Each structure stands twice: as structure tokens, then as C-alpha cells.
């Protein structure tokens, strides 16, 4: 497949690298010249150091022969426009319509982008929420809204080097029973922790907790209170 990735941040870069490794033809459009150059030095001549939201660079990338266009910048508006431009240009040049995928950074925009013609959207927040819903499988339809109404919040804690939680097991933290830790992100790996999971510095811990438990969780995980 021929895939155009717009936006060479962490998401776009790893995506490009993975897709290339899978044998696809990929071109990455990244507007920051220094960043584009660094990526080109590692991955070869697969980078166009320009703005993907300006139609001419999608044209130069050969959007009319692309199978997929992925808009992966950190902002939702350009991601929408990139997907739409890809489709409009492909239509104008008589090519076939590429499948468009947009990264959504603000969950509120997810539905909107689809209504405005983007084929598929990917939201990190939604992915994490889906994992949590899976975790709470007896009630698979718990939504964020309901959580809010129930006075529960979803938080992320990054474990610092000097935190008392480093080397500690989840069970050993002795968190209140109404606090749950559905997910630990370590490097690129997502771990479903159990009581025996040992925590490490720089782990990102996703916690689901009643709002009034925030300070005790913060203290146990970060070694400080607010």
C-alpha cells in the first residue's frame, strides 16, 4: 500500500517507521525542517519537509495514488483539513479516493470529524477509556460522563525517580479499596497491573478514583501531597 502520514511527532514518526518495516511505501510530511531532516537521516528519503495542510504538498506527495492518508498532527483542525484536502485533491486529479484516518486529540471532536467526512478517527483518550471499560467488564457501558456524575475521576500519575512507589508492588501501596489502577504504561508497553506488579520510575499510572481520594493516591504514588 502507499500511505501518506501527515505530522512527524511521536505518533507520526513511530507510525511511519512501523509501516515501512511492514513493507509499505510511506511518505511522511513534517513541517519542522530540523525534525524532518532528523527523521530522513534515520528512515531515508521518505520525508517531505513541508506543511501537509497546504494542498500543494499533498499534491506533490502523489495523494491521487495513495491508498491511505493518515493525519497525525497534534491538532484536530489541521487533521480534519488534511483529510478533506486529500479527498478533494484526489477527486480533482481524477485519482481514487484514499481512505482517510485522523488522529483526534480532543475527544469532543471525534464525532465531528467523522460527520465532516473523515473515514476513521483514532483518539488516544478513547483507546485508554476502552481499556478501562474492558477492565470494568461487569459494567461494560460505563461512560466518562457517568463517571463524572458519580464523583469519580480518571488521572494519570508519572512515577518520579525519588518516589516511594519505585520498586514497590501495587498491593504494597495499600491504596483505598475504591481506587483502581487499570493501566500502567511503561515505555511503549501497556500493562494491566495486579497486586504483584512492581512499579518503576517513569511508569505512567492511570488511576480511577473518587475525587476526594486524589491527595492520598498522590501521596502514595508521588510521595507528596497537594
Amino acid at each position, binding site marked *: 500500500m502507499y500511505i501518506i502520514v501527515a505530522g512527524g511527532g511521536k505518533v507520526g514518526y513511530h507510525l511511519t517507521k512501523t509501516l515501512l518495516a511492514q513493507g509499505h511505501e510511506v511518505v511522511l510530511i513534517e513541517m519542522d525542517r530540523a525534525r524532518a531532516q532528523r527523521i530522513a537521516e534515520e528512515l531515508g528519503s521518505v520525508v517531505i519537509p513541508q506543511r501537509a495542510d497546504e494542498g*500543494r504538498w499533498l499534491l506533490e506527495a502523489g495523494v491521487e495514488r495513495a491508498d491511505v492518508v493518515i493525519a497525525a498532527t497534534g491538532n484536530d483542525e489541521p487533521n480534519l483539513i488534511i483529510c478533506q484536502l486529500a479527498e478533494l485533491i484526489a477527486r480533482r486529479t481524477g485519482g481514487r479516493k484514499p481512505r482517510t484516518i485522523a488522529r483526534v486529540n480532543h475527544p469532543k471532536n471525534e464525532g465531528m470529524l467523522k460527520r465532516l467526512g473523515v473515514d476513521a478517527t483514532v483518539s488516544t483518550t478513547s483507546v485508554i477509556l476502552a481499556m478501562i471499560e474492558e477492565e470494568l467488564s461487569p459494567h461494560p457501558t460505563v461512560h466518562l460522563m457517568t463517571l463524572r456524575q458519580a464523583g469519580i475521576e480518571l488521572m494519570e500519575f508519572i512515577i518520579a525517580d525519588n518516589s516511594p512507589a519505585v520498586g514497590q508492588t501495587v498491593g504494597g501501596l495499600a491504596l483505598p479499596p475504591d481506587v483502581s489502577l487499570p493501566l500502567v504504561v511503561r515505555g511503549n508497553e501497556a500493562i494491566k497491573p495486579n497486586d504483584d506488579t512492581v512499579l518503576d520510575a517513569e511508569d505512567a499510572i492511570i488511576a480511577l478514583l473518587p475525587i476526594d481520594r486524589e491527595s492520598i493516591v498522590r501521596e502514595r504514588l508521588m510521595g507528596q501531597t497537594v
Partner: protein
Amino acid sequence: MNIVIMGSGRVGATLANRLSKEGHHVGIIDITSEAFERYLDPEFKGRTVLGDGIDEDVLRKAGIATADAFVAAAHGDNHNLMAAQIAKVIFGVKRVVTRCNDPVRMELYEALGLATISPSLIAARSLYDLVMDERLHERDVAAEIERALGSA
């Protein structure tokens, strides 16, 4: 008419002031309140709404549901184009005008039925006309200024 304007910079606010003075109902949106204070007339009678114009709730507060026209006059082509499409597609606003500076984007979105204008192209055209206007440059401006100041 009921008109919603996104962006209370020089362009958006100047338009809002004029429409309000003419008796239209204007709702104007910006992400900072300083923009309202800096550019809107104290006599402005419309509604000011703080928030992002691509947020449906913010648009509703500004009166999009009953708007006859929507103007996307913020900075940033992408932002304007997204807000304009929400006004057109989601709220069914009849007249939608968008500020957009990239000629390629302009052309493609005009094909989708959005009216777009480019302030930079208009400014360049006006500047060209002025530079090329022979009559203007035949006048001795320095002498005129001197005379005007001398007589004051």
C-alpha cells in the same frame, strides 16, 4: 439579520461593530476577552462569547441555531474552515463566509460551497493598484504636507 462571527481581532471586530451599528443581532466569539476589549466599540450591542468557535456549545451560546449568517474571521485557515463547516453542515446556516489565506485551500473549499476571502490577497491587490496609480504619484505629497502643517 442574526449573525455569528468567530474571531474578535481587527477584522472580525470591525465587521461586528458595523453590523451592530446597522441594527443586526451579532454574536461574536473569541478565545480571549482582551480581544473584545481591544477592538469592539463600547457601543457594541451584540453578545460576546468566550470560547473556541469549533465547539458546538460555544457556537450555540453565540446564537448559531437561529443565525442567518456565520463569518469565520479568526487567524488560522484550518480553524476557520472547520468552524465554517460546522456552521454549514451541522447547524445549516445559509450564508457562511470564511477567511482563508492559502489559495489551494480556498479553491477547494469554494467547490464545497463555502465562500472564502483572503485578506492578504485583497491587501496585495489594493497595494498594487495604489503603487501603479499614476495620478497619486504625480502629486507633490511632501509639499502638500508642509503646506497643511504650515497652515495649521
